[in-house]
């Protein structure tokens, strides 16, 4: 049968994700778009360490101890691993709301706001929740069409809402959020140690050379270069590590610190802190490893050349592409009319269908039940 013979191009979900991320290795690697500074970071670390291993280590291994280069190698491997883990992993991106969810939220908002007179600005979309006896405001994200969970924030550079958003770090070329914060912290910590280590042994090397009778080698020039790089790196990286240690002990994010969310005025306190430094550190550094909810490598069935074998797969493609076509191209979520939710419900599918952007081929309420089935099975057996 022809449908079986024609090869299908496998499209993975990462190819259709909204947001300004770049993906590599077929969706395994996820980074921000601007990677220039990340390459600089790599160059500085690898370059300095290469000089150290090439020129310092032979001397130090012989004159002091072979353990010195061994430890340096271990530290270097750890630094690189943490850097790559931070840069390449999903920071905790929250997927955008599918049309039905967006509509549902819209209806809730409309119901909560009541009647807004024409010409009057509608009230800001904020939900108040009480967390540990503290009122926390959840803001509505107009891009992702969700109420952001507490501590989540929208990164404008990556155009994604990120859970427990800390900051966007150009040095690692990615956002730092819930899923990769501990790798980021370990990266800064280990890099501080590595920098101090190299700096210290460079100084030792120079000092030893002064007392060495046979001072004829190229090494001092490389040493000076390394010392310079380490000196300038030290202040920034060690400072950053110290700052993040402080944040971790208080269970705060950089974002909250900058905004002064829990600065203490108006008797506002951090509801997420356990009021115990050890507990806070343990939660951030030794907490569970959260899964990615993006499913980057999930397969979207797409028959680019063959006729659709059945309505099922075509429709299931479209159903899977819902998170995909949910881009900012479609305008504000649609309420077909201001009727009561009961009346509006059957109308949602039809209303959405007529008003959605041309890219979105899928009608929300598929006429064929078969269309739902494969997608539903897929979901339930995920």
């Amino acid at each position, binding site marked *: 049968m022809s449908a079986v013979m024609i090869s299908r191009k496998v499209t993975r979900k990462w190819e259709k994700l909204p947001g300004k991320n770049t993906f590599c290795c077929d969706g395994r690697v996820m980074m921000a778009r601007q990677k220039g500074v990340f390459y600089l970071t790599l160059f500085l670390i690898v370059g300095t360490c290469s000089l150290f291993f090439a020129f310092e280590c032979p001397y130090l291994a012989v004159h002091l101890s072979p353990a010195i280069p061994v430890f340096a190698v271990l530290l270097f*491997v*750890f630094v690189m*691993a*943490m850097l790559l*883990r931070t840069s390449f992993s999903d920071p905790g991106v*929250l*997927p955008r*709301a*599918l049309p*039905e*969810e967006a509509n*549902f*939220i819209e209806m809730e908002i409309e119901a909560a706001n009541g009647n807004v007179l024409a010409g009057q600005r509608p009230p800001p979309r904020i939900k108040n*929740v*009480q*967390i*540990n006896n503290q009122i*926390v405001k*959840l803001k509505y994200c107009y891009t992702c069409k*969700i109420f952001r*969970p*507490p*501590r989540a924030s929208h990164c404008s550079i990556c155009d994604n809402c990120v859970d*427990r958003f800390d900051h966007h770090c150009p040095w690692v070329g990615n956002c730092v959020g819930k899923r990769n914060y501990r*790798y980021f912290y*370990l990266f800064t910590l280990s890099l501080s140690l590595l920098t101090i280590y190299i700096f210290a042994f460079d100084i030792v090397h120079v000092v030893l050379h002064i007392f060495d009778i046979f001072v004829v080698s190229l090494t001092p020039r490389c040493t000076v270069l390394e010392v310079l790089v380490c000196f300038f790196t030290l202040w920034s990286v060690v400072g950053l590590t110290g700052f993040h240690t402080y944040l971790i002990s208080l269970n705060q994010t950089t974002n909250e610190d900058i905004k002064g969310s829990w600065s203490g005025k108006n008797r506002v306190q951090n*509801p*997420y802190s356990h009021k115990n430094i050890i507990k806070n550190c*343990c*939660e951030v*550094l*030794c*907490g*569970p*490893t*959260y*899964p990615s*909810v993006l*499913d980057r490598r999930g397969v979207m069935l797409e028959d680019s050349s063959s006729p659709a074998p059945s309505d099922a797969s075509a429709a299931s493609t479209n159903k899977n592409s819902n998170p995909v076509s949910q881009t900012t191209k479609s305008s504000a979520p649609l309420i077909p009319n201001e009727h009561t939710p009961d009346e509006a*419900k*059957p109308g*949602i*599918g039809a209303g959405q269908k007529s008003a959605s952007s041309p890219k979105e081929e899928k009608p929300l*309420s*598929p*006429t064929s*039940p*078969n269309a*739902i*089935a494969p997608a*539903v*099975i897929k*979901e*339930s*057996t*995920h």
Partner: protein
Amino acid sequence: MADFHNLQELRHSASLANKVFIQRDYTDGTICKFQTKFPSELDSRIERTLFEDTVKTLNNYYAEAEKIGGQSYLEGCLACLTVYLIFLCIETRYEKVLKKISRYIQEQNEKIYAPRGLLITDPIERGMRVIEISVYEDRGSSGSSSGSSTTSSSGR
């Protein structure tokens, strides 16, 4: 209201009428927990206790996955020592619990929800933000009905 005996029947004779979204409950912080408030749209479709049981069990599973205690420390420290390469070989505790959740939802769908014309979507498919419950109507019936969930449908 139609009585769907299993997922198969649901598939062949139902059309999607509505979706209900159970939101997250943030009162205990950022841990994954869903509201157990019974939505009014499901009033005629399923018993309140069954629904609450499902959500409470899911909440318990998530609490187990996110528990910070001896096991999570051990996992964290071991992983750190192996430069997180150990996760290439073993599954994290969270992933194990997610599989359990997936099986549980499948089982609930088959036993309880599909016969009532409902279908639960695993929250992980929706970014762990909502539990999406799809409400199906029998294709033959017009509009929503208010029959009890135990009435059986005429043959389709």
